[in-house]
């Protein structure tokens, strides 16, 4: 024995593990130094020791969509973990992901198709068969289509991504012929995306924490919730602890992100843009900018300006935004702004991050553009450690019938006419108000998916009245797993499969600039009669006599996508490998940076023409331009023909446009904004409501916590167990001025209504503000989320032994009742953080 070397020893350890697995008991326990614990990938029943079946899949709790592993025992999904092979998640998972099994087995889940029998909203239902449901729905849809009005079928989705989006939207809805489609991005972060499209083109900024030296945060709560949470949050904390990377967070609220930052700098709501501009002012004034990057910047009307001219234009524009000026507006001291600016400029590389706290305001567009400016003038754009362009995989997928009809649409998805300059990501909060208004027409069938329109938008009361009114919308239908506030107002409910019971290919952005291909596979058969909407639309199309030709199930669609991708992507290993491993990335791929520096060679320019006004080389044929002589800027969707940007004597890929005809420069000077009457350079716009505030009024701000997902998780018992109440946070000074003590009942009144909730007096918020999270305050979310048993047809699953262990009887108060639906005039972002309220003891 003494002669055994360590390698043999390891073997012995493994052998003893195998013996244990065979039920040999503990007597052959491995010895110290021999046990090399594996981090995951396997799980066992804690009572019997039996190994659980591990199946790679992908989470769907939030939009991060982490690669995951499901563990199944006797046909039941018992446990989720991350996928240890994933380069995005590095084998880690958050509380939301861990609560996955609750999504399948919560007792109030909708398991059978249901049809309304009472008045709309009355809550009386009968169970129907799938055949009855789809015969009725396809009959109604077919009638509209046959009459030449497919646009009267409106589809409104909350989250629909990757293969689900391609199959349902690009194949099914396109083949049906309706363009009356709305997403939900403007109540999320649509404004941020538009601001990016107006500056560097295609949206999504990845923050390269692995390589950065300094993090400057405006209104992102990345450590609790983010569009790419697990991949980025773990890298941020790792950078801090292992490399001493400093984080400075500007926020109204001391969030968990602020708590894990080196500095929290409290700021008055809606004024982040003023700090950003003042920081840029300090950097330009002190010549701390990175001159080399100015080559790719547009900072003047003249697209051929020299770097010095651009620098001088920015210096001049920014000269009024001094730290002293910003101090008066924001409450942040001029010296702090000055020192933060210098720290940011000198830490190379540094990354500026931003999210809704900064963006979901009247002036959010220019706050985000200001962040782009800060990154650009310091050369922290698409560089290792900076603000990088998001990289995701490029799946190939079947597109369905070639000769699709030209889509007809009701103009309901992009806001009231003339109210939003660039609604590139829709203005979904105005969909129901516009239906009420009626001028853009009204749908005869309104279908929503993974969405709860009367809860997640503002003005909950107004939206309910619209959705409830059969005269405004004759037929309402949803595909859902949970009976929520909106399903209550449906005429028909289809029982959706959960994400753990369905197939997808997935494509979320990688934190390390190397794309990862990954899939979601069904871990178990759907409960009851639940069906994935992806499968349902294939059958609906058949019933309407318009077959999609993409396979008979979503699984087949996903499989076909794998076959197509294998032909297009070098090294892609195919469906069997993906089912076994769940994830794949090209092991030889290098992280992608500096794509703007790529020169466009002459042969690529032969079908392109130079637009002198913008310096853009574009291919009018590719853009389907009928009159190219109108020029690049004035031709509808000319951006689709973009080839490169002429800079000096060379042509670069630079920053290709998306959704709007931007030049190929990183446009700090936006000709597009100027055209619509806005300032072309990032500018500070005060928020009109805030300018008129009286001394006794407060800002209302909303936020997310680490253990819930939007409005989609309160039925998950392990999450609601931790968080089921949302008192309004108030600073002690704010509370004392109003005679309010911690725990007091308070009335919060806005111009559109009032709510009664409780006060939480806390040091973790700036004075003059009340902050209320929006996950809870559910009226319908089953027993765990709302205390109400859902009237689901076919009977609820009451086998959950935890029903008698539930100990909470408070469910919070939703703030969206008193927040109006109101848009950023540039980008259509719902202005979540601009509402002015009075707060009194109730």
């Amino acid at each position, binding site marked *: 024995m*003494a002669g*055994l*070397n*360590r*390698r043999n020893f390891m073997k012995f*350890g493994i052998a003893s*593990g195998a013996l244990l697995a065979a039920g040999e*008991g*503990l007597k052959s*326990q491995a*010895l*110290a*130094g021999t*046990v090399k*614990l*594996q*981090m*995951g990938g396997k*799980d*066992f029943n*804690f009572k019997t*020791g039996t190994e659980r079946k591990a199946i790679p899949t992908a989470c769907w709790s939030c939009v991060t969509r982490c690669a995951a592993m499901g563990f199944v025992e006797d046909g039941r999904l018992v446990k*989720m973990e*991350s996928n240890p092979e994933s380069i995005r998640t590095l084998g*880690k998972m*958050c*509380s939301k992901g*861990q*609560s996955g*099994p609750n999504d399948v087995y919560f007792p109030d889940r909708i398991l059978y198709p249901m049809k309304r029998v009472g008045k709309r909203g009355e809550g009386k239902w009968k169970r129907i068969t799938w055949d009855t449901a789809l015969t009725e729905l396809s009959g109604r849809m077919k009638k509209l289509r046959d009459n030449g009005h497919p646009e009267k079928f409106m589809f409104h989705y909350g989250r629909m991504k990757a293969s689900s989006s391609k199959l349902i939207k690009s194949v099914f809805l396109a083949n049906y012929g309706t363009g009356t489609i709305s997403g939900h991005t403007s109540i999320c972060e649509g404004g941020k995306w538009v601001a990016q499209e107006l500056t560097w083109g295609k949206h999504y900024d990845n923050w390269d924490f692995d390589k950065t030296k300094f993090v400057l945060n405006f209104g992102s709560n990345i450590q*609790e919730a983010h569009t790419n949470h697990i991949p980025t*949050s*773990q890298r941020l904390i*790792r950078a*801090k*602890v292992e490399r001493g990377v400093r984080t400075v967070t500007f926020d109204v609220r*001391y969030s*968990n992100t602020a*708590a894990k930052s080196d500095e*929290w700098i*409290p700021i008055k709501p809606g004024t982040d843009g003023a700090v950003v501009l003042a920081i840029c002012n300090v950097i330009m004034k002190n010549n701390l900018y990175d001159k080399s990057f100015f080559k790719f910047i547009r900072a003047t009307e003249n697209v051929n300006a020299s770097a010095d001219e651009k620098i001088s234009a920015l210096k001049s524009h920014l000269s009024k935004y001094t730290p002293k000026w910003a101090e008066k507006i924001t409450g942040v001291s001029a010296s702090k702004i000055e020192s933060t600016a210098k720290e940011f400029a000198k830490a190379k590389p540094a990354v500026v991050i931003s999210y809704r706290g900064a963006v979901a305001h009247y002036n959010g567009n220019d706050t985000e553009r200001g962040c782009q400016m800060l990154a650009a003038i310091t050369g922290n754009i698409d560089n290792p450690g900076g603000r990088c362009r998001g990289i995701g995989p490029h799946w190939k997928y079947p597109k369905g019938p070639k000769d699709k009809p030209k889509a007809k649409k009701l103009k309901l998805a992009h806001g009231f006419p003339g109210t939003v300059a660039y609604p590139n990501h829709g203005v979904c909060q105005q969909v129901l108000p516009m239906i009420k208004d009626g001028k853009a027409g009204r749908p005869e069938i309104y279908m929503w998916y993974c969405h709860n329109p009367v809860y997640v938008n503002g003005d909950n009361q107004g939206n309910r009245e619209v959705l409830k009114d059969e005269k405004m919308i004759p037929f309402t239908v949803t595909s859902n797993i949970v009976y929520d506030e909106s399903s209550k107002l449906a005429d028909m409910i289809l029982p959706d499969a959960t994400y753990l019971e369905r197939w997808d290919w997935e494509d979320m952005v990688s934190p390390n600039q190397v794309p990862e291909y990954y899939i979601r596979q069904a871990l178990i058969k759907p409960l009851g009669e639940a069906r994935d909407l992806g499968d349902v639309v294939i059958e609906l199309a058949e019933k309407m006599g318009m077959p999609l030709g993409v396979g008979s199930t979503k699984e087949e669609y996903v499989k076909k996508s794998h076959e197509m991708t294998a032909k297009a992507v070098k090294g892609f290993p195919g469906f069997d490998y993906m089912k076994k491993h769940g994830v794949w990335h090209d092991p030889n791929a290098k992280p992608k940076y500096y794509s703007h520096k790529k020169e466009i060679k002459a042969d690529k320019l032969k079908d392109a023409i130079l637009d002198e006004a913008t310096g853009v080389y574009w291919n009018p044929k590719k853009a389907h331009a009928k009159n190219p002589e109108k020029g690049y800027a004035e031709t509808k969707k000319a951006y689709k023909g973009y080839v490169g940007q002429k800079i000096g004597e060379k042509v670069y890929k630079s920053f290709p446009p998306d959704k709007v005809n931007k030049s190929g420069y990183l446009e700090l000077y936006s000709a597009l904004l100027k055209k619509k009457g806005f300032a072309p350079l990032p500018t500070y716009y005060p928020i009109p409501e805030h300018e008129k505030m009286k001394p006794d009024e407060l800002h209302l701000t909303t936020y997310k*916590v*680490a*253990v819930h997902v939007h409005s989609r998780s309160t039925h998950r018992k*392990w999450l609601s*167990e*931790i*968080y089921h*109440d*949302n008192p309004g946070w108030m600073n*002690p*000074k704010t509370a004392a001025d109003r005679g309010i003590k911690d725990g007091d009942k308070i009335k919060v009144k806005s111009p559109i209504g009032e709510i009664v909730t409780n006060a939480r007096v*806390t*040091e973790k*918020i*700036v*004075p003059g503000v009340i902050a209320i999270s929006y996950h809870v305050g559910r009226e319908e979310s089953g027993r765990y989320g709302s205390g109400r048993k859902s009237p689901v047809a076919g009977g609820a699953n009451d086998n959950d032994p935890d029903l008698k*262990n*539930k*100990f909470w009887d408070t469910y919070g108060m939703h703030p969206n009742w008193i927040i109006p639906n109101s848009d950023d005039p540039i980008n259509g972002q719902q202005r979540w953080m601009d509402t002015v309220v009075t707060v009194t003891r109730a």
Partner: protein
Amino acid sequence: MSKKDSISRRDIIKTGGAMAAVVAAGLLPKKAEAAKNGTPRWAMIVDLRRCIGCRGCCVADKSEYGAALGRYNTVVKNVEFGKYPAPKKYFLPRLCNHCSGGEKDVPPCVEKCPEAKSGKRMKLGKTRYRTGATYKRPDGMILLDMSLCIGCYKCIDACPYGVRSIDPFVKLTRPDREKDFGVGKCTFCQHRVDKGIAPSCVNTCQGRARIFGDLNDPDSKVAKLAREFKLLENRDKTTLLPGEKTEPYNLYIDPDGILARYKITKETKLEEFKSRFE
């Protein structure tokens, strides 16, 4: 093969023994014996710099065990202090301390358990031990055998940390006790660790704030961290309730002195060991 790989077992034991002697002066002969016998000493190190309060661990545990609502094997507490504009908030993950038991070498829960030795004779490596309703395995895990439990709940009272609770999902099996519920707590995921897989909470922890491993293996991450941060020498600053002298093996890296700000009393210990925030 690297030089490190070719260390013989004897060398490992030697180094292990030397390490134990150096870092844990005052290690009792019995423990040294276990170490010499090659038994692991499992420990959980919680790095408070790294915990971001996501509660992934709490829910992972719920799922791993199907734990009843209201009952917890692990929790994360918010520790808050300071005034605006400089408030402070820290996250303090808590679990069973898997106490060694200090000078007596018997942790209080085992000491108070009337059935602590009523189970089978077992051997872990060369080290003999006996199971019980609550017992300590030679590798340091404090484990439960509910087929032996009589439901006296003295262990719940005995644990100064409040990590034990009545488990409504476990019925006792001893005659006359069939109507009573059992007791639950963190087991360091013994069922995973025995098969070479890290505990569920460690697996999921995105901050890598939970580090689990064998202190008797000098090359393990926990042994290295214990040396770097002197976790075993400074138990008054690296463990909860050092005054209880239970010698926890849930050790904290706590450069900002958060443990000292966190209070557990006999009256509040059970209420405190719950996971909830607003």
